[in-house]
Protein backbone atom coordinates (compact mmCIF):
# COMPACT_ATOMS: atom_id res chain seq x y z
CA UNK A 1 0.00 0.00 0.00
CA UNK A 2 2.71 2.45 1.08
CA UNK A 3 4.74 1.45 -1.96
CA UNK A 4 1.78 2.22 -4.23
CA UNK A 5 1.43 5.68 -2.73
CA UNK A 6 5.15 6.28 -3.15
CA UNK A 7 4.98 5.26 -6.80
CA UNK A 8 1.94 7.44 -7.33
CA UNK A 9 3.75 10.42 -5.80
CA UNK A 10 6.82 9.90 -7.99
CA UNK A 11 4.57 9.69 -11.03
CA UNK A 12 2.95 12.96 -9.95
CA UNK A 13 6.39 14.59 -9.61
CA UNK A 14 7.40 13.37 -13.07
CA UNK A 15 4.17 14.61 -14.63
CA UNK A 16 4.49 18.03 -13.06
CA UNK A 17 8.13 18.33 -14.14
CA UNK A 18 7.16 17.56 -17.70
CA UNK A 19 4.32 20.04 -17.40
CA UNK A 20 6.55 22.83 -16.11
CA UNK A 21 9.10 22.05 -18.83
CA UNK A 22 6.42 22.28 -21.50
CA UNK A 23 5.17 25.59 -20.11
CA UNK A 24 8.70 27.04 -20.04
CA UNK A 25 9.33 25.85 -23.58
CA UNK A 26 6.09 27.42 -24.75
CA UNK A 27 6.82 30.72 -22.95
CA UNK A 28 10.25 30.80 -24.59
CA UNK A 29 8.74 30.15 -28.00
CA UNK A 30 6.21 32.93 -27.44
CA UNK A 31 8.95 35.33 -26.38
CA UNK A 32 10.91 34.55 -29.50
CA UNK A 33 7.84 35.02 -31.66
CA UNK A 34 7.07 38.30 -29.88
CA UNK A 35 10.60 39.70 -30.28
CA UNK A 36 10.04 42.30 -32.95
CA UNK A 37 13.39 43.72 -33.97
CA UNK A 38 13.19 46.87 -36.06
CA UNK A 39 16.18 47.43 -38.33
CA UNK A 40 17.86 50.43 -39.89
CA UNK A 41 20.98 51.04 -41.93
CA UNK A 42 21.58 54.78 -42.22
CA UNK A 43 24.58 57.11 -42.39
CA UNK A 44 25.53 59.46 -39.58
CA UNK A 45 26.81 62.95 -40.34
CA UNK A 46 30.33 61.65 -41.08
CA UNK A 47 28.85 59.27 -43.66
CA UNK A 48 29.46 56.10 -41.64
CA UNK A 49 26.57 53.66 -42.02
CA UNK A 50 25.11 52.77 -38.64
CA UNK A 51 22.90 49.74 -38.06
CA UNK A 52 20.73 48.46 -35.23
CA UNK A 53 23.17 45.56 -34.64
CA UNK A 54 26.06 47.76 -33.55
CA UNK A 55 24.04 49.05 -30.61
CA UNK A 56 23.38 45.61 -29.12
CA UNK A 57 23.93 45.75 -25.37
CA UNK A 58 22.42 49.23 -25.15
CA UNK A 59 18.88 50.48 -24.97
CA UNK A 60 17.97 52.59 -28.01
CA UNK A 61 15.61 55.55 -27.72
CA UNK A 62 14.54 56.27 -31.29
CA UNK A 63 12.69 59.30 -32.69
CA UNK A 64 11.64 59.95 -36.28
CA UNK A 65 11.59 63.66 -37.06
CA UNK A 66 12.93 66.53 -39.12
CA UNK A 67 14.77 69.65 -38.06
CA UNK A 68 12.47 72.15 -39.80
CA UNK A 69 9.80 71.05 -37.35
CA UNK A 70 9.38 73.89 -34.85
CA UNK A 71 7.18 72.30 -32.21
CA UNK A 72 7.00 68.54 -31.68
CA UNK A 73 10.61 67.67 -32.60
CA UNK A 74 12.44 70.19 -30.40
CA UNK A 75 10.00 69.52 -27.57
CA UNK A 76 10.70 65.78 -27.74
CA UNK A 77 14.47 66.27 -28.11
CA UNK A 78 14.35 68.55 -25.04
CA UNK A 79 12.71 65.71 -23.08
CA UNK A 80 15.35 63.27 -24.33
CA UNK A 81 18.11 65.69 -23.28
CA UNK A 82 16.57 65.88 -19.81
CA UNK A 83 16.36 62.07 -19.65
CA UNK A 84 20.05 61.71 -20.56
CA UNK A 85 21.09 64.33 -18.00
CA UNK A 86 19.04 62.81 -15.20
CA UNK A 87 20.01 59.18 -15.84
CA UNK A 88 23.49 59.93 -14.52
CA UNK A 89 26.02 57.11 -15.03
CA UNK A 90 23.29 54.83 -16.41
CA UNK A 91 23.05 57.12 -19.43
CA UNK A 92 25.98 55.14 -20.83
CA UNK A 93 23.60 52.25 -21.48
CA UNK A 94 21.13 54.37 -23.47
CA UNK A 95 21.68 55.67 -27.00
CA UNK A 96 19.22 58.27 -28.28
CA UNK A 97 18.75 58.28 -32.07
CA UNK A 98 17.12 60.88 -34.28
CA UNK A 99 16.23 59.37 -37.65
CA UNK A 100 15.47 62.08 -40.18
CA UNK A 101 12.32 61.69 -42.27
CA UNK A 102 13.48 64.71 -44.31
CA UNK A 103 17.07 63.55 -44.85
CA UNK A 104 18.20 65.65 -47.83
CA UNK A 105 17.25 68.94 -46.21
CA UNK A 106 18.48 67.89 -42.76
CA UNK A 107 21.89 66.84 -44.12
CA UNK A 108 22.21 70.21 -45.80
CA UNK A 109 21.25 72.26 -42.75
CA UNK A 110 23.45 70.29 -40.35
CA UNK A 111 21.75 67.59 -38.31
CA UNK A 112 24.67 67.04 -35.91
CA UNK A 113 25.00 70.65 -34.84
CA UNK A 114 21.25 70.89 -34.30
CA UNK A 115 21.06 67.77 -32.14
CA UNK A 116 24.19 68.69 -30.16
CA UNK A 117 22.38 71.84 -29.05
CA UNK A 118 19.99 69.54 -27.18
CA UNK A 119 22.43 66.91 -25.92
CA UNK A 120 25.80 65.66 -27.16
CA UNK A 121 24.67 62.03 -26.85
CA UNK A 122 21.91 62.26 -29.47
CA UNK A 123 23.01 60.62 -32.72
CA UNK A 124 21.43 61.91 -35.93
CA UNK A 125 20.98 59.59 -38.92
CA UNK A 126 19.95 60.75 -42.39
CA UNK A 127 20.00 58.30 -45.26
CA UNK A 128 18.76 58.35 -48.82
CA UNK A 129 15.10 58.01 -49.70
CA UNK A 130 15.13 54.20 -49.93
CA UNK A 131 17.07 53.58 -46.70
CA UNK A 132 14.83 56.04 -44.83
CA UNK A 133 11.70 54.36 -46.16
CA UNK A 134 13.05 51.00 -45.16
CA UNK A 135 13.77 52.15 -41.58
CA UNK A 136 10.33 53.78 -41.30
CA UNK A 137 8.70 50.56 -42.54
CA UNK A 138 10.78 48.35 -40.26
CA UNK A 139 9.70 50.33 -37.19
CA UNK A 140 6.12 50.20 -38.52
CA UNK A 141 5.88 53.98 -38.17
CA UNK A 142 4.97 56.80 -40.52
CA UNK A 143 6.78 59.71 -42.11
CA UNK A 144 5.44 61.39 -45.19
CA UNK A 145 5.99 64.53 -47.20
CA UNK A 146 3.04 66.90 -47.44
CA UNK A 147 2.96 69.63 -50.04
CA UNK A 148 2.27 72.95 -48.35
CA UNK A 149 2.82 76.08 -50.37
CA UNK A 150 3.06 78.20 -47.21
CA UNK A 151 5.82 76.07 -45.62
CA UNK A 152 9.53 76.71 -46.17
CA UNK A 153 10.58 74.91 -49.36
CA UNK A 154 6.93 74.27 -50.22
CA UNK A 155 6.47 71.18 -48.07
CA UNK A 156 6.29 69.91 -44.54
CA UNK A 157 6.36 66.44 -43.01
CA UNK A 158 3.81 64.53 -41.02
CA UNK A 159 5.47 61.89 -38.90
CA UNK A 160 5.00 59.47 -36.02
CA UNK A 161 5.73 61.46 -32.91
CA UNK A 162 6.47 58.83 -30.25
CA UNK A 163 9.82 57.77 -28.86
CA UNK A 164 10.51 54.08 -29.46
CA UNK A 165 12.49 52.00 -27.00
CA UNK A 166 14.51 49.00 -28.17
CA UNK A 167 16.20 46.64 -25.70
CA UNK A 168 19.81 45.44 -25.58
CA UNK A 169 19.08 42.58 -28.00
CA UNK A 170 17.45 44.96 -30.45
CA UNK A 171 13.99 43.89 -29.40
CA UNK A 172 11.09 46.31 -29.41
CA UNK A 173 10.11 47.16 -25.82
CA UNK A 174 7.59 49.98 -25.95
CA UNK A 175 6.82 53.46 -27.16
CA UNK A 176 6.55 56.68 -25.19
CA UNK A 177 3.81 58.79 -26.71
CA UNK A 178 4.46 62.43 -27.51
CA UNK A 179 4.29 64.51 -24.36
CA UNK A 180 5.47 61.77 -21.97
CA UNK A 181 7.35 63.73 -19.28
CA UNK A 182 11.09 63.06 -18.97
CA UNK A 183 10.54 61.85 -15.39
CA UNK A 184 8.19 59.07 -16.57
CA UNK A 185 10.68 57.94 -19.21
CA UNK A 186 13.49 57.96 -16.63
CA UNK A 187 11.43 55.90 -14.19
CA UNK A 188 10.72 53.33 -16.91
CA UNK A 189 14.37 53.16 -18.01
CA UNK A 190 15.69 52.87 -14.45
CA UNK A 191 13.52 49.80 -13.98
CA UNK A 192 15.22 48.18 -16.98
CA UNK A 193 18.87 49.26 -16.72
Amino acid at each position, binding site marked *: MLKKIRIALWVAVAVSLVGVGALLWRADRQEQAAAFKPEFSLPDEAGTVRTAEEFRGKHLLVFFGFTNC*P*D*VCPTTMAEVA*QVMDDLGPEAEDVQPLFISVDPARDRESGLGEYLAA*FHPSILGLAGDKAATKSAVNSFKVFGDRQEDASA*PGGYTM*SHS*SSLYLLGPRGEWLRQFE*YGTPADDIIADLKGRL
Partner: protein
Amino acid sequence: MLKSLLAGMGLAVMLPAVALADCAEVSQGQLLISAAWSRATIGTARPAVFYVTIRNNGSTDDRLTGIETPVAGMPMLHETVMTDGVASMPHASDISIPAGQTVSLAPGGYHGMLMDLEEELKDGESFPVTLKFENAGPVSVETAVLPLRAREAACGDAP
Protein backbone atom coordinates in the same frame (compact mmCIF):
# COMPACT_ATOMS: atom_id res chain seq x y z
CA MET B 1 24.63 82.98 10.67
CA LEU B 2 22.85 86.32 10.54
CA LYS B 3 24.93 87.21 7.51
CA SER B 4 23.94 84.11 5.56
CA LEU B 5 20.32 84.61 6.57
CA LEU B 6 20.45 88.13 5.20
CA ALA B 7 22.17 86.90 2.05
CA GLY B 8 19.45 84.28 1.64
CA MET B 9 16.74 86.89 2.03
CA GLY B 10 18.49 89.11 -0.49
CA LEU B 11 18.52 86.22 -2.98
CA ALA B 12 14.85 85.49 -2.33
CA VAL B 13 14.04 89.08 -3.20
CA MET B 14 16.20 89.04 -6.29
CA LEU B 15 15.04 85.77 -7.86
CA PRO B 16 11.49 86.86 -8.75
CA ALA B 17 12.92 90.02 -10.30
CA VAL B 18 15.20 87.92 -12.53
CA ALA B 19 12.32 85.62 -13.47
CA LEU B 20 10.08 88.56 -14.29
CA ALA B 21 12.49 89.86 -16.89
CA ASP B 22 11.69 86.75 -18.92
CA CYS B 23 7.97 86.94 -18.34
CA ALA B 24 6.61 90.24 -19.51
CA GLU B 25 2.88 90.66 -18.98
CA VAL B 26 0.86 92.96 -21.18
CA SER B 27 -2.75 93.75 -20.67
CA GLN B 28 -5.02 95.34 -23.22
CA GLY B 29 -8.75 95.68 -22.80
CA GLN B 30 -9.92 92.40 -21.30
CA LEU B 31 -6.90 90.42 -22.41
CA LEU B 32 -3.82 89.57 -20.38
CA ILE B 33 -0.87 88.32 -22.46
CA SER B 34 1.98 86.57 -20.65
CA ALA B 35 4.73 83.95 -20.82
CA ALA B 36 5.76 84.72 -24.39
CA TRP B 37 8.77 82.61 -25.28
CA SER B 38 10.66 81.09 -28.15
CA ARG B 39 13.58 78.73 -28.64
CA ALA B 40 17.03 79.77 -29.80
CA THR B 41 17.82 78.91 -33.41
CA ILE B 42 21.01 77.85 -35.18
CA GLY B 43 21.30 80.31 -38.03
CA THR B 44 18.18 81.37 -39.91
CA ALA B 45 17.48 78.36 -42.16
CA ARG B 46 14.96 76.65 -39.90
CA PRO B 47 11.70 78.18 -38.69
CA ALA B 48 11.48 79.30 -35.08
CA VAL B 49 8.57 78.88 -32.72
CA PHE B 50 6.43 81.26 -30.68
CA TYR B 51 4.50 80.32 -27.54
CA VAL B 52 2.35 82.56 -25.37
CA THR B 53 -0.46 82.49 -22.82
CA ILE B 54 -3.59 84.60 -23.37
CA ARG B 55 -6.17 85.15 -20.63
CA ASN B 56 -9.54 86.63 -21.52
CA ASN B 57 -10.87 88.29 -18.34
CA GLY B 58 -13.85 89.80 -20.12
CA SER B 59 -17.35 88.61 -20.89
CA THR B 60 -17.01 88.62 -24.68
CA ASP B 61 -15.10 86.15 -26.82
CA ASP B 62 -12.14 87.27 -28.86
CA ARG B 63 -10.04 85.70 -31.61
CA LEU B 64 -6.34 85.72 -32.34
CA THR B 65 -6.23 86.21 -36.09
CA GLY B 66 -2.50 86.50 -36.73
CA ILE B 67 0.96 87.44 -35.52
CA GLU B 68 3.66 89.77 -36.79
CA THR B 69 7.28 90.19 -35.81
CA PRO B 70 10.30 92.01 -37.22
CA VAL B 71 12.43 88.84 -36.82
CA ALA B 72 10.47 86.77 -39.36
CA GLY B 73 9.23 87.49 -42.85
CA MET B 74 6.47 84.93 -42.63
CA PRO B 75 5.01 84.29 -39.19
CA MET B 76 1.96 82.01 -39.10
CA LEU B 77 -0.33 80.39 -36.59
CA HIS B 78 -0.20 76.61 -36.65
CA GLU B 79 -1.67 73.78 -34.69
CA THR B 80 0.03 70.47 -34.02
CA VAL B 81 -2.56 67.77 -34.54
CA MET B 82 -2.02 64.17 -33.45
CA THR B 83 -3.87 61.47 -35.36
CA ASP B 84 -3.08 57.94 -34.17
CA GLY B 85 0.31 59.12 -32.94
CA VAL B 86 1.16 60.86 -36.21
CA ALA B 87 1.87 64.58 -35.88
CA SER B 88 0.89 67.01 -38.59
CA MET B 89 0.89 70.79 -38.43
CA PRO B 90 -1.97 72.47 -40.24
CA HIS B 91 -2.23 76.24 -40.52
CA ALA B 92 -4.70 77.71 -38.01
CA SER B 93 -6.57 80.59 -39.61
CA ASP B 94 -7.49 81.94 -36.18
CA ILE B 95 -7.57 80.85 -32.55
CA SER B 96 -10.63 81.38 -30.39
CA ILE B 97 -10.07 83.08 -27.01
CA PRO B 98 -13.39 82.47 -25.20
CA ALA B 99 -14.58 84.83 -22.48
CA GLY B 100 -13.28 83.92 -19.03
CA GLN B 101 -10.77 81.40 -20.37
CA THR B 102 -7.04 81.02 -20.78
CA VAL B 103 -5.65 79.78 -24.07
CA SER B 104 -2.03 78.76 -24.34
CA LEU B 105 0.08 78.49 -27.44
CA ALA B 106 2.25 75.72 -26.01
CA PRO B 107 4.31 72.69 -27.09
CA GLY B 108 2.17 70.06 -28.80
CA GLY B 109 -0.73 72.40 -29.56
CA TYR B 110 -1.20 75.84 -31.06
CA HIS B 111 2.01 77.70 -31.78
CA GLY B 112 3.37 80.47 -33.93
CA MET B 113 5.71 79.26 -36.66
CA LEU B 114 8.22 81.97 -37.53
CA MET B 115 9.41 81.36 -41.09
CA ASP B 116 11.91 83.32 -43.17
CA LEU B 117 13.92 84.39 -40.13
CA GLU B 118 15.67 87.71 -40.55
CA GLU B 119 18.14 86.95 -37.77
CA GLU B 120 19.32 84.14 -35.56
CA LEU B 121 17.40 83.97 -32.27
CA LYS B 122 19.94 83.90 -29.46
CA ASP B 123 19.41 82.47 -25.99
CA GLY B 124 18.92 85.28 -23.48
CA GLU B 125 17.73 87.85 -26.00
CA SER B 126 14.16 88.89 -26.68
CA PHE B 127 12.13 90.17 -29.62
CA PRO B 128 8.71 91.77 -30.02
CA VAL B 129 5.70 89.91 -31.41
CA THR B 130 2.46 91.67 -32.22
CA LEU B 131 -0.64 89.59 -31.68
CA LYS B 132 -3.63 90.64 -33.76
CA PHE B 133 -6.97 90.23 -32.02
CA GLU B 134 -10.33 90.65 -33.67
CA ASN B 135 -11.77 92.75 -30.81
CA ALA B 136 -8.86 93.89 -28.66
CA GLY B 137 -6.79 94.95 -31.69
CA PRO B 138 -3.00 94.60 -31.95
CA VAL B 139 -1.01 93.85 -28.78
CA SER B 140 2.76 93.77 -28.73
CA VAL B 141 4.58 91.47 -26.31
CA GLU B 142 8.28 91.02 -25.64
CA THR B 143 9.23 87.40 -26.31
CA ALA B 144 12.05 85.74 -24.35
CA VAL B 145 14.44 83.53 -26.32
CA LEU B 146 15.21 80.43 -24.24
CA PRO B 147 17.76 77.68 -24.99
CA LEU B 148 16.86 75.31 -27.85
CA ARG B 149 16.24 72.56 -25.30
CA ALA B 150 13.83 74.62 -23.16
CA ARG B 151 10.62 72.77 -22.37
CA GLU B 152 8.47 75.58 -21.02
CA ALA B 153 8.40 79.32 -20.31
CA ALA B 154 10.92 80.36 -17.68
CA CYS B 155 8.05 81.77 -15.58
CA GLY B 156 5.76 78.74 -15.87
CA ASP B 157 2.17 79.04 -16.96
CA ALA B 158 0.47 82.29 -16.16
CA PRO B 159 -2.47 81.98 -13.75
